[in-house]
């Protein structure tokens, strides 16, 4: 039996994976063409990079929520760790490495490493807990990261890099630059994030998650999700695999944070608060837990939607809330679901089969 046979056995899954890659590539080509032919409005063009970042966030959170079955309410925390460490790296490299794409790539890698480390530190206590308790602790960590970054100062001068907490006591030498300025965050960022870079990151995130899911680690993640006790009984190391999923997810979120941050000239820690964590969770839940394509589409739609609702100005967030509630009711209530299915001739035929 060859690998081809092995993939054939997983035909349905494989088809979904290739469909996901295909749609992302197609969407990229379309957007890129539209963008270069000035077909896209400038506000839409400005949203391309954030959309990519949110897509990566959705894919990475899906690894924790959908694949590993743990609710995390602090994912934006990893994004902010990545944003701050990534931007700081890019600024430090500005003189040494004038080639922006390389600087961006290195910044994203460093960001991923910092976020992974944060994920590891947080994972040690978090992963010992279960269910709603785990959720509240991730929420707590998200808030702690925000508080710390809001009070963190980092500067660089000829003497090297200096840090301080709460107040700026870095005492930089003349010609030095205060990079992270507590609640003021980082300003004067060179906007080196580009849409192609975002696209590549989305593809990398998808590749990492898909390939991981279809490996022994992925089987372990899902086995632990489906039945923790049975998973232990077949010798799976629960802590190790939970940690692996958590850290991988954090690393991807970190890279996304760096991409996101370098699309703006200023970044502050408050941008990555509880509401952002929830927003990303909404992408995952609306797209379907474990469904990467769904999460990606939800991320794109829900990032564009508030913009498109702008004509309703004051009502837009209200509409957003109503859409959210109605969507959840429509996709989860048995009666409404069967009513919708009756309206849909394709679904009906599928069920008959």
């Amino acid at each position, binding site marked *: *039996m*060859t*690998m081809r046979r*092995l993939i054939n*056995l*997983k035909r349905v899954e494989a088809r979904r994976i290739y469909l996901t890659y295909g749609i992302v590539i197609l969407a990229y080509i379309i957007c890129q063409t539209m963008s270069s032919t000035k077909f896209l409005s400038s506000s839409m063009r400005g949203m391309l990079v954030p959309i990519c970042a949110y897509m990566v966030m959705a894919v990475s959170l899906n690894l924790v929520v959908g694949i590993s079955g743990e609710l995390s309410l602090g994912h934006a925390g990893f994004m902010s760790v990545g944003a701050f460490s990534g931007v700081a790296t890019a600024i430090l490299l500005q003189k040494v490495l004038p080639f922006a794409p390389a600087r961006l790539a290195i910044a994203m890698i460093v960001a991923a490493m910092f976020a992974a480390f944060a994920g590891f530190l947080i994972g040690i206590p978090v992963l010992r807990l279960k269910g709603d308790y785990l959720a509240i602790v991730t929420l707590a960590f998200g808030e702690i990261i925000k508080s710390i970054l809001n009070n963190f100062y980092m500067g660089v001068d000829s003497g090297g890099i200096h840090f301080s907490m709460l107040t700026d006591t870095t005492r930089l030498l003349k010609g030095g630059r205060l990079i992270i300025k507590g609640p003021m965050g980082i300003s004067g960022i060179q906007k080196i994030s580009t849409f192609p870079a975002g696209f590549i990151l989305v593809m990398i995130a998808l*590749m*990492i998650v898909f*390939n*991981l899911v*279809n*490996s*022994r*680690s*992925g*089987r*372990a993640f*899902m*086995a632990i*999700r*489906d*039945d923790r*006790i*049975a*998973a*232990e*009984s*077949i*010798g*799976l*190391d*629960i802590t190790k695999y939970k940690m*692996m999923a958590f850290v*991988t997810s954090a690393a991807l979120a970190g890279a996304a944070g760096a991409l996101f941050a370098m699309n703006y000239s200023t970044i502050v820690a408050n941008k990555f608060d509880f509401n952002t964590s929830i927003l990303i969770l909404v992408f995952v839940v609306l797209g379907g837990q474990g469904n990467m394509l769904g999460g990606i589409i939800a991320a794109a739609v829900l990032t564009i939607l508030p913009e498109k609702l702008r004509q309703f100005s004051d009502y837009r967030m209200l509409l957003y809330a109503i859409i959210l509630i109605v969507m959840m009711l429509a996709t989860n209530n048995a009666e409404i679901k069967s009513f919708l299915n009756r309206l849909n001739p394709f679904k009906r035929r599928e069920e008959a089969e």
Partner: protein
Amino acid sequence: MAKSKTKYVSIPSTTILPERDASREPVLKCVNLGITLGGIKAVEDFNFTVGRTEIVGLIGPNGAGKTTVFNLLTKVYQPTTGTILLNGRDTHGMNTMQVNRAGIARTFQNIRLFKNLSVVDNVKAAMNNDMRYNMLSAILRLPNYRREEIAAHRRALKLLSIFDMQDMADVRAGSLPYGAQRRLEIVRALATNPSLLLLDEPAAGMNPSETADLMDNIRKVHEMFQIAIILIEHDMSLVMNICEGICVLNFGHVIAKGTPDEIQNNPAVIEAYLGRRKEA
């Protein structure tokens, strides 16, 4: 399949083993095992030895503590007293995962499959500890990933074929019929290469013909893998037919041990199941 009577021999330390296993170290030896759950001594003074290739039945009325014994052996509960020696090794301080790696695999009374995984992935999940490739190989699909995945897939199908389930390999485990789910649990347990297999009511909810098939399958597994099996079962025809030794529990205590014939005629066992005969 005709059943040949197992000859038992006594060995020192107050225990008996099948003749064929007598000269070898027992796979499992429990000494004074006990646990207190919520103030109640759920299992007490459990002394039990299982030969390397023995099939033993663990029977007793509901609530006698049979599943608790399984939970103690697999460290779902930590024993409050006593020692468990697995292949001569004390399992003190081990957790469920380590006990499995040391050689105990089990099934559950209430089926615990990985419902959203396919049948073959349920089995492959259990082979995780045989695989060596790391995360990077998986993400980059390096040659060792492909090699090991193919080998695991082959072996999983082979194991499934013992129970005639190779054609269901791609079905979602949660959507299997009940009997097949029970069989899959056994395959999954076998995939971890155990030296001792614990089956918790494998025939529960099965009709007589399914039970007969199951019996053949358990014999087949026993012959192929030459492992020890302990099974908890209420279906006495299955227990008496398949088990070489039987241990009877009641209220957390062992009330009888012996061959099926001995157990069938043991007054204490009859009393435990049927109650004391009224003095005429």
